[in-house]
């Protein structure tokens, strides 16, 4: 076991995969000599050299396009988009090219690539460097979408993403980069499309993703003091979506809450809500309730940003009012 930060876990995961497979390479802005804008790729250039750890110009279309062309001809690239908001400047490559090519070519083209990106708020960066955009990706057929919440999951899910034959968008939550956790020694490989029950309780099911997981756990602890026991599920992956873990929990608790960092409309929780309403309606003892960032661009001021993002007390309050 080693204590690693979430950002160190990124470098650990990439190292593990680059050592295992010589066709894996890392490309992105400042990923090499500078060790990444968030210091998540420190040491990789020294270890693997400039042919496999490549600094790029500020050219998101070139980065993602090159990753696609490399993937379709035999490499397994890991590309970095520094802030996930910047997906907007290369969305054609992601949404029209990478996502649709296997289907359009009737399975001729395989695209084993990973796009990592710093996602989400809490850093006081303002609206163009803070949005949680994982639901953009979830809306496109052909993409897999992953967002880990712990250092161990970063390593294991990154390894799974690199080994996966499909394109994976890997969202690293910026507000988690400094958080720490124990990571097992040796090779760590996880499985995409599996949610994790991180806390067991019989009164309510709270499903959260990435930075919202520790907040949901804090809310559950607060509620436990009042005699309300909540299950907290870390969804970890939006595509594939682990419906069965959520459905099994809802069958036991009768109440579902989602906690989403994305702005309100069309967040992942809306899809999960619709599936559960459709398939678990008779297990429910009350309405499904979504806790999200309101439908606003994220403001920069700490007081306002804190007000926007779902807090443990808002989560606890929401659960309390519904089932208390």
């Amino acid at each position, binding site marked *: 076991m080693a204590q690693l930060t979430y950002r160190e876990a990124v470098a650990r995961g990439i190292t593990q995969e680059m050592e295992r497979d010589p066709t894996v390479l890392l490309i992105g802005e400042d990923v090499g000599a500078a060790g990444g804008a968030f210091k998540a790729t420190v040491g990789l250039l020294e270890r693997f050299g400039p042919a496999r750890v490549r600094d790029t110009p500020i050219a998101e279309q070139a980065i*993602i396009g090159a990753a696609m062309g490399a993937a379709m001809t035999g490499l397994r690239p890991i590309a970095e988009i520094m802030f996930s908001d910047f997906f907007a400047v290369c969305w054609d490559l992601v949404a029209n090219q990478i996502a649709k090519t296997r289907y359009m070519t009737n399975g001729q083209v395989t695209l084993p690539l990973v796009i990592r990106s710093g996602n989400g708020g809490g850093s006081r960066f303002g609206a163009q460097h803070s949005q949680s955009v994982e639901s953009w990706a979830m809306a496109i057929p*052909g993409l897999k979408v992953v967002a880990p919440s712990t250092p161990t999951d970063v390593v294991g899910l990154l390894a799974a993403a690199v080994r996966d034959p499909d394109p994976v968008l890997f969202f690293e939550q910026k507000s988690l980069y400094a958080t720490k956790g124990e990571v097992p020694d040796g090779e760590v490989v996880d499985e995409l499309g599996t949610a994790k029950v991180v806390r067991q309780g019989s009164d309510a099911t709270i499903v959260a993703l990435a930075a919202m997981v520790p907040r949901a756990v804090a809310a559950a602890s607060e509620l436990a003091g009042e005699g309300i026991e909540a299950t907290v599920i870390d969804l970890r992956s939006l595509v594939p979506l682990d419906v069965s873990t959520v459905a099994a929990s809802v069958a036991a608790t009768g109440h579902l809450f989602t906690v989403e960092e994305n702005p309100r409309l069309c967040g992942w929780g809306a899809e999960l809500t619709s599936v559960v309403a459709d398939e678990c309606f008779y297990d429910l003892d009350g309405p499904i309730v979504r806790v999200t960032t309101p439908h606003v661009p994220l403001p920069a001021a700490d007081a306002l940003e804190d007000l926007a993002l779902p807090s443990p007390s808002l989560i606890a309050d929401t659960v309390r009012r519904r089932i208390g």
Partner: protein
Amino acid sequence: MRTDPSVGLETRLALYETMYRIRTFEKRAYDLFLSGLVKGTSHLSLGQEAIAAGFGEAMREDDWSFATYRGHAHALARRVPMAAIMGELMGRACGLMAGKGGSMHLTSVEHHMMGSYAIVGAHLPIAAGAALTAQQLGTGQVAVCFFGDGATNIGAFHEALNLAAVWRLPVVFVCENNLYMEYTPIAAVTAVPRPAADRASAYGLEPIVVDGNDADVVLETAARVLDRARSGEGPSLVEALTYRHGGHSRADPGKYRPDDEVATWLARDPVLRYRERLLDGGLEAGVIEGVERAVDDAVAEATEAARSSPPPDPDLLYRDVFADGGASWRN
């Protein structure tokens, strides 16, 4: 006229055969569109055959082609079977992608035809990525990326050229300058007279402008830039001047083009021109006619094969979104 002795008769005949095949196929595709058998849209390369044929002839078998929605010619130049292309245009089971891609997305990995891309400019960085593979694995392959004059004003063009130059990637960018985007003359919306070549120096590249209606010139240019890429000297940007005989797509009559301009370019028809050159060079008319008859028959046969093919299996709707063969996004 060029008389490079190293270009043998066999090569010249092959060049002509490819151009004539593209010409005949495209005319048939147009007829089938008018008769309702080819649906949706299609963008023909009538008048632009020499570029696809010249590069196709010069490329190594494992070099990669990346084309636009105006891509039938490039698939044909890589010898993708005509029945499969025709079937794809008609949305039939025998189609190259079983009807899941359509005219604008012809792809045959087996023939190193790595796709036809319908978002203007998108495939330039993708071709650079293929070149990255060649460089990284030392395979000696070159990626060749064909695009229109209109693509030179989109960001992806500039991003790809810069990246390819900085990394010295084995990629050749070929601008088929047919003087028009869809309906707007490229000159009306571009800051420089040569939309590709005048940008070359910004990326440290030699400006190259060639007659894209002369198959010999294209072949010679292609051989030179492919060589350069293969020997590790980096990318090239070629601007090949040409003209489409018809409209932009579907049944566009192309009325926005002045009559005298159309007449000038029709007189430079790359297929007729090359035929005359072969005759002038002493080739017997009978040999050329033999090639033409074989192509005519093959196009007729391909059309019939596509026409008699059933529609795609309904199961295909849900196949190959993901590499497990399916479309499942949940458990």
